[in-house]
């Protein structure tokens, strides 16, 4: 088998303009997942009645479903139900006008929320009890304690895990081809449809994904070192 270097370069060049799409598909769900995940984690940490049980059930179910599956299910449900719901509500919006990216973002957000809620829950329990006690003893309320003491101390714990979650999302975003969104992978593959240089296109896409992952890891490392200088070193018993 011969590998056509030129085809790799062509595919690489064709894929590069789609990096923003891939990043968007990963970063927006990451942001939504951070907010939702933190709320779920706090609800479960405080064992709020009903809600805590509800989320713990949802997370068990959600964790067990492959992303591909929920992506396709979401797409089918949307394509089937959207027009009739839209009509019932009197919107002029139709399914064909909806950007498919949103469906992908929706599904990836759900995954990010589940994954990040577990990360935050773990981090919450790792904050020593005496930090809570000390905050209470100087008269801080629960909300003040979380905002001023607990969240800042969670940052260095969760940062590396959030970054690996971002890398997971970037890779998962490659599945959006199933709902006909053009991202880095699809962008690279388009060039091979006439020349049949599929392997070369996949190699080109892989190089871009590698590059993105390495970049994120480096950024994560930079922030970790920043926080280590500030207060982490030697303080977690």
């Amino acid at each position, binding site marked *: 088998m011969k590998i056509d270097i030129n085809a790799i370069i062509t595919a690489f060049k064709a894929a590069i303009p789609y990096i923003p799409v891939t990043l968007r598909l990963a970063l927006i769900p990451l942001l939504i997942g951070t907010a939702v995940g933190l709320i779920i984690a706090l609800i479960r940490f405080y064992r709020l009645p009903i809600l805590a049980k509800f989320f713990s059930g949802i997370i068990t179910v959600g964790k067990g479903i492959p992303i591909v599956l929920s992506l396709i299910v979401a797409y089918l449900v949307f394509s089937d139900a959207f027009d009739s719901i839209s009509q019932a509500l009197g919107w002029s919006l139709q399914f064909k006008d909806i950007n498919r990216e949103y469906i992908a973002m929706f599904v990836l957000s759900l995954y990010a929320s589940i994954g990040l809620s577990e990360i935050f829950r773990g981090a919450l329990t790792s904050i*020593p009890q005496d930090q809570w*006690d*000390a905050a*209470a*003893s*100087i008269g801080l309320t629960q909300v003040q304690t979380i905002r001023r003491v607990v969240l800042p101390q969670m940052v260095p714990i969760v940062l590396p895990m959030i970054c690996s979650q971002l890398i997971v999302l970037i890779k998962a975003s490659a599945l959006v081809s199933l709902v006909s969104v053009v991202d880095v992978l699809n962008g690279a593959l388009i060039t091979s449809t006439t020349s049949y240089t599929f392997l070369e296109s996949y190699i080109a896409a892989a190089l871009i994904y590698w590059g993105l992952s390495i970049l994120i890891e480096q950024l994560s490392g930079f922030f970790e070192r920043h926080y280590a200088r500030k207060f982490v070193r030697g*303080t977690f018993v």
Partner: protein
Amino acid sequence: MIKIQNIHKKFGQNEILKGVDLTIETGEVVVIIGPSGSGKTTFLRCLNFLERADQGTLQIGETTADFKQATKKQILAIRKKTAMVFQQYALFFNRTALENVIEGLVIARRIPKKEATEKGKALLEKVGLAGKENHYPHELSGGQQQRVGIARALALNPEVILFDEPTSALDPELVGETLDVIKQVANEGSTLVIVTHEMQFAYEIADRVIFMENGVIVEQGTPQEVFDYTKEQRTKNFLARTAVYH
């Protein structure tokens, strides 16, 4: 004046406090001694609601609270009148020494940051930590961290400061500097309740020594009464087991 009546506390089936009564005068230094598991620390933690007692009442100055029924508001009111120094220092490790000291002033008491900073700096100087304002806890020794903890408690001008075994986690050579600071605080007329295993220190600092065992106060009195003219056999047994105390 602090008045504690009939505190009961259970952890599961295990009754830790079995009805403790105590009245502490303003400016009094009360030292609680006793074997591990006697309920000393739990008693102390109940006084600022870090532990919720099952039964009993608490009065600090004009503020009263019933342990069973206390609302969040009452709990905050009690906490405003108390401060605590912890065994493991419990400094916020995301904040510098100075930030640790002024956190309660700025956030809980809403005192302007400039004013709080001045007060915080003065307090750090008082506990012998001038120049360490911008150090994070991990950059300080155990003794220094504990002195920041004391400054943090002092900053709040509480009616009573609770010390939970303030030197138990310290290396022996660092105990002295911490005890000296506590003595200085005691001499300035603050009301202190101290749980400790340092008998010599208890003897020197206390106005009143309380011996607790199995969730009740067994014996109390001046240091001389408790250490030199011990009445109760249980106290004698305990003192015989602990190191030489003076």
